[in-house]
């Protein structure tokens, strides 16, 4: 960093895409507070997170995957498969404490399957994960067929539904812990640097001795495992699983990541951007719900926001909106 005065450094920060997201977030929160006195209560904020917690946890790993210039469309189906596998094994009488690691392993194996076809066979991730999107969902349906499975043990449901630390449930704590760890990994670690370099130019990384196939494999295994974890959280929160758990979540998750400023072409973006986009999406949906706007329309509005997120940085409002390119790659 070249030296700047504190004030102009702050101004420069506002001019980044993250700066813009912060401003947008403040605006939305103020609007919501004006709309409803209940908005700023702790219980409402917890509720806000809880409703989308599975998606936003997966969005953190998806940020890595997209910065790496890949995509994982199979996350929603893997969440469904994990939830159904949990339900199925539980129904078969397997001890739930044992079931949890098994389900996480299924997630890792699914991710490894994606990783194998992408990094070893060399197929485009868009195609591979489209196939496993259909395939994993199919396996979920094989496991539970058209039944619903409920009556999980009380401790499991409690973990999903009640506060663990005060009123804050496990899932939200898990989200922020995961965010903190992944933030450091992406922004400061060697693994994070490699994620950016491979996303920028895979051949340059390979010629510098980086095992790009292994890196991609790790990312897809992580994506599968975290998706399975999110599927478990879903089962615990809702207390029931069916074949269509988390159907279509992949597109919501990708939307949040892209809105956060991660380039679809790889190589740039930050986890902070993803977090801000998550907060914006959650608060915006909440605000629209307060205005009695239905879910489909809410999604439509977020769609508009997504296109705007690419177009807005190009409109230079007196230098207010800086470039969208940011993060490690540019810094």
């Amino acid at each position: 960093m070249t030296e700047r005065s504190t004030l102009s450094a702050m101004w420069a920060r506002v001019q980044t895409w993250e700066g813009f997201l912060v401003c947008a977030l403040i605006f939305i929160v103020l609007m919501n507070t004006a709309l409803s006195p209940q908005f700023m209560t702790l219980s409402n904020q917890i509720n806000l997170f809880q409703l989308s917690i599975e998606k936003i946890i997966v969005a953190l790993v998806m940020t890595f995957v997209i910065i790496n210039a890949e995509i994982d469309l199979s996350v929603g189906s893997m969440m469904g498969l994990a939830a159904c596998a949990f339900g199925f094994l539980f129904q078969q009488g397997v001890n739930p404490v044992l079931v949890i690691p098994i389900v996480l392993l299924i997630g890792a194996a699914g991710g490894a399957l994606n990783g194998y076809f992408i990094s070893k066979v060399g197929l485009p991730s868009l195609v591979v994960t489209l196939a496993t999107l259909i395939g994993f969902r199919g396996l979920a349906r094989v496991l539970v067929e058209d039944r619903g499975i409920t009556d999980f043990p009380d401790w499991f449901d409690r973990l999903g539904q009640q506060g663990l630390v005060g009123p804050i449930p496990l899932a939200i704590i898990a989200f922020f812990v995961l965010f903190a760890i992944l933030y450091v990994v992406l922004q400061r670690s060697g693994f994070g640097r490699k994620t950016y370099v491979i996303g920028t130019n895979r051949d340059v990384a390979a010629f510098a001795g980086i095992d790009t196939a292994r890196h991609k494999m790790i990312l897809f295994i992580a994506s599968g495992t975290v998706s399975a974890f999110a599927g478990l959280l879903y089962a615990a929160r809702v207390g029931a699983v069916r074949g269509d758990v988390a159907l279509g979540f992949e597109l919501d998750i990708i939307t949040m990541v892209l809105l956060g400023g991660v380039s679809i072409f790889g190589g740039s973006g930050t986890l902070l951007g993803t977090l801000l986009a998550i907060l914006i999406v959650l608060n915006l949906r909440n605000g629209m719900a307060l205005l009695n706007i239905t879910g489909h329309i809410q999604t439509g509005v977020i769609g508009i926001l997504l296109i705007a997120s690419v177009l807005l940085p190009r409109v230079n409002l007196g230098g207010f909106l800086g470039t969208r390119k940011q993060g490690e790659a540019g810094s």
Partner: protein
Amino acid sequence: MTAPLLTLDRVSKRFGSTHALTDMSLNLFAGEVHAIVGENGAGKSTMIKIMTGIHQPNEGRVLVDDEPRMIAGSQAARELGIAAIYQEPMVFPDLDVAENIFISQVGGGLFQNKAGQRREARALIERIGMDLDVDRAASGLTLAEQQAVEIARALSQDVRVLIMDEPTASLSAHEAQQLRRIARQLASDGVSVVYISHRLEEIFEVADRVTVIRDGEHISTNPIGETDTDTMIAEMVGREVGNYFAKGENHARDEVILSVANLSLQGVFEDISFELKRGEVLAMAGLIGARRTDVALALFGITPATTGSVIYKGQPLTVTSPKQAMDAGIAYVSEDRRKLGLAMPMAIRANISLATLTGFLTRFGLIDRAGEKATADRFRERLAIRTPDVETEVGMLSGGNQQKVMLAKWLNMNPDLLIFDEPTRGIDVGAKAEVHDLIRTFVKEGGAAIVISSDLPEVLAMGDRILVMREGQQMAILDHDEASQERIMTLATGQAGAAA
């Protein structure tokens, strides 16, 4: 003489505060091949972009047939009969040759007239004296054939001014010869050909007139018979070249660091054998397609050799990945900065630490950024990388400075063996000399280097010994004293075998 087809009249072009072109004037006549030479960054590409309507001049006029014209884009340029072909041809792999030629043709009905198209395509290909099946998909064509397709496309659009930008840079000697013949042929058909090349010797073969530009300014335009290489080089660099061509001292020590015996990669190269001592530079000479880079990639573990042995520091060595090669102390600096060498949108700092990232990790696997920056700053000073700071994106640097960043990345590894592929391709004469000095310093301090180069003066200036390859075969290893440009060329073109 008739009126010029295309005239630049005191054209200036600025980008921000940089003057890319200043008061540039040039006349192009029908039926001539006009060569333009200059160092990288001299303004050649800006000039092409103004002629083809991609850029508009800030000052001055562009005249076509003596009439001032505003060329508003490449489409407008084409309508005026101005077209350009580049080093990397622009063809569509999934269409056949005939379709490639006529893809942008306007009019002529809604449907393709396959038979007519084929006939016309054949006529055009014949006109430039190539032998090419017009029904073949473009994906299987060689570079030279692809260029022929592009020239045919330009001809189909009634080109009057054809600009060839470094057309022979990636061609084999035979193909380059063919391309120069095409250029001459087009000129005799009345086309005005602009020929841009770094290879000065070919300019004497192809051009009628030659223009030298430097720092965006016009230096001279002469009929080819009234100038020579030395004059041209002097005008290009604006100073005497000094020791660029001079051979440095031989620092070879006794220890043999690398000994390669009968190294082969099936279908690519065969029976490569050589020894390399510490302090020595082995130059690899040959034409495009001689497979020198493939030998380097085998030593670096990208595409491992199938048979043969490598003794390195007295031990047998097998590498199947760059990581293994790097662990052994072998570094490979690629010829392709953009695709294989540098992460262009990333900072100089991050590029320099790339090959040695593990060395910058602290206890928890985090990157020591201060250490990274210190290292980058050290190399910035040592290699004289001209940049405001090491946080600058590598993509913003000039070619020569990018080359130095790439070198810094590998020097930081402290390699024992440095393989440098085309170390000075596309960088200016000043930077070339600097890069040569850096390589000499490296071997003087005990390293060993393999320098792959297509630039014969460079081969002679760098190589203590010179390995000449031709189509995957090792033709000879020459000591510096017995080598000459003629000798190397004879071996590289296979004339030696024919004579024997």
